[in-house]
């Protein structure tokens, strides 16, 4: 049986192509379980998992919780607001308390970059990073890669363009690392204010013209634009952003017929992505959501090292 030889999943930067391949292949068999009428395997029966969300989340949280249920693990979920954090308890204390209750794996979303590393250093339980600040969101990167792989049959030599607020995006960072490790060619597009400083470190090309960026792309991924970035002066208005950088049918007129359109959600319809594209035939956004559960099942399986039924 193959497992991951690591305690934690903190980011894709530190992961090898072999590991990513193993996860994607495992996810494929997990998706088969999801397609059964009775979506439950006893693989992780008796194993305990904690979902610790210090930021609001619908998709990721539901996806992890379902993955845990399908695998028969026992899971508790703690949200930032209802947690003891509001009483001033430190993250370390919170998790150590839950750990002595028998939790073997902690899934955490946290607004501070590096907090997953911090947690992983301080607990014996496995840590899966469900998004830390602007750093990484590895399970999103993996589900995005899974979606592309399923639809295109490969990742090597595909041209992927990520459009929007790369600077503040953990989704973008995970995808930039993961996709390139798997042999894809990645470019980013958007206003320079929304690009990370010293972008060269990621080894990707930057376009300020969306049309140019997507001209020969196989995949285009739009990122959610946050209103608060306007208030901090990164761009003048949602309207101007939509007109200049938003993805819509007209802007994608001269692109490949089999271009995949992706979005990690939640979508600002009409801002970074028009509804006709989001709901159109080239959109694989719903595939992404479904892939999320399969990928998370795979990670739980590989980390907790359950034996197959």
């Amino acid at each position: 049986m193959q497992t991951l030889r690591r305690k934690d999943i903190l980011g894709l930067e530190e992961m090898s192509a072999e590991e990513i391949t193993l996860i994607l292949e495992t996810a494929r068999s997990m998706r088969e379980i999801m397609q059964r009428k009775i979506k439950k395997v006893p693989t992780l029966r008796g194993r305990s998992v904690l979902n610790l969300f210090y930021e609001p989340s619908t998709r990721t949280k539901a996806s992890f919780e379902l993955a845990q249920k399908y695998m028969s693990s026992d899971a508790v979920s703690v949200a930032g607001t209802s947690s003891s954090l509001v009483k001033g308890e430190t993250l370390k204390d919170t998790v150590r308390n839950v750990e002595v209750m028998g939790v073997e794996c902690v899934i955490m979303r946290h607004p501070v970059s590096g907090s997953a590393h911090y947690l992983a250093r301080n607990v014996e339980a496995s840590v899966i990073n469900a998004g830390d600040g602007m750093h990484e969101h590895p399970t999103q990167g993996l589900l995005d890669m899974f979606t592309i792989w399923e639809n295109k049959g490969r990742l090597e030599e595909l041209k992927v363009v990520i459009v929007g607020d790369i600077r503040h995006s953990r989704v973008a960072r995970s995808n930039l690392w993961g996709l390139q490790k798997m042999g894809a060619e990645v470019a980013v597009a958007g206003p320079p204010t929304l690009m990370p400083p010293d972008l060269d470190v990621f080894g990707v090309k930057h376009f300020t013209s969306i049309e140019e960026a997507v001209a020969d792309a196989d995949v285009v991924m739009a990122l959610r634009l946050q209103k608060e970035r306007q208030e901090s002066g990164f761009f003048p208005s949602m309207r101007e952003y939509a007109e200049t950088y938003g993805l819509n049918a007209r802007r994608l007129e001269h692109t490949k017929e089999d271009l995949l359109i992706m979005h990690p959600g939640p979508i600002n319809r009409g801002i970074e992505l028009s509804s006709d594209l989001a709901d159109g035939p080239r959109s694989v956004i719903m595939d992404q959501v479904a892939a999320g559960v399969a990928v998370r099942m795979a990670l739980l399986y590989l980390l907790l090292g359950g034996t197959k039924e």
Partner: protein
Amino acid sequence: MKTLYITGGRVIDPSRNYDQTADLLIEDGIIKKVEKGMKPPSDAEVIDADGLVVTPGLVDMHVHLRDPGQEYKEDINSGTRAAAAGGFTSVAAMPNTDPVTDDPSMIRYAFDKAANTPARVYPMGAVTRGQEGKELAELGRMKKAGAVAFSDDGKPVVDGMMMRNAMQYAMGLDALVIVHEEDPALAARGMMHEGTVSSVLGLKGIPSAAEEAMLARDLLILKITGGKMHVAHVSTAGSVEMLRRAKKEGLNVTAEVTPHHLLLTDRMVKNSGYSTNTKVNPPLRAERDRQALWEGLLDGTIDAIASDHAPHHPDDKDMEYDFAPFGIAGLETTLPLMLDEVNSERVKEFTLPVLVDRLSTGPARILQLDSGTLKEGSTADLTILDLNRSYIVDPDSWHSKSRNTPFAGRRLLGAPVYTIVGGRVTMKEGVLTE
């Protein structure tokens, strides 16, 4: 007070370019004689310094003692014990206490509390009341009470007009203003140096321009006001270049650099897996900045090495990166770190006399202290070093209440063996005498 006789050491006194084997006779807290082969008085306590190095007492011109207000992080007692253990005979204490040291009574408080400590404390006063940048603090009355310099360190004086007035007013008192150069808008609540590493880690960056823009402004202000300005913890290549030019133009400006900026870069944040012990302001910069700081230190653009000792309680640093406070504790590591650099010859021109100048004579001159020299007749503040003593950075053995250092576990060569303050041995063989 006992007569001291220090024999057989290599005596380095940068204040008069002195570097030879000699004996020292110390009576009544005063250096009486520096000579080869004197006969020690029969009642003298003899220190055999054969194979050791005798230097003027080291001065750390930038420390935070947290007293009053945050004594759980450090206090005058623990901070001066840390200083003596680290080979320092004197420290200059920053005024960002709670309440802020912006009043003569607070200056007197520090002197009183430090009356019998194993190292001297020279308190500094705030430039503006409460360090709020709105009204001038009573610089004149604080100077009379003994304040050695004035600074709003921890933050800059944001308002340009206030800075101009402070510089001009301080000039009338022949007072030194120490500036913390950071444009808060450009720093934008960043967590580390802005560059490739911050981009990868997803931590908000503090661009070099945040420091350089403020330094440029203050050098321009200095040009119109006159007076003397000292730049705390210089961290960027651009700042070094600006300071070099300013000095060439004859501006009365001095500068200091910390060991962590000389020895570490932003890569450490990544390599340590976001260790909060790498979180410091100004942040650990890029390799080319580090190189430029060494060049500045060696060509005299930078006059002093200072620790910027910023002690924090271990609980305060045991947090997510954004939530932990900025700061590195350095009183007990600065000298061993720098001695190790001399020993390693990683930087050729960084010799022992240069080290002693930047850690003693330089800062003493900037603060106009009666130390930093071994001239006959001067106060007997001395440090004795052993270049061959191995030293492991072990925060758990510190005298400081803090443990926050990114150097923990480092094996170094070179350590202080005696700290002598006014003819009184306060540290011997790494052990405090009281």
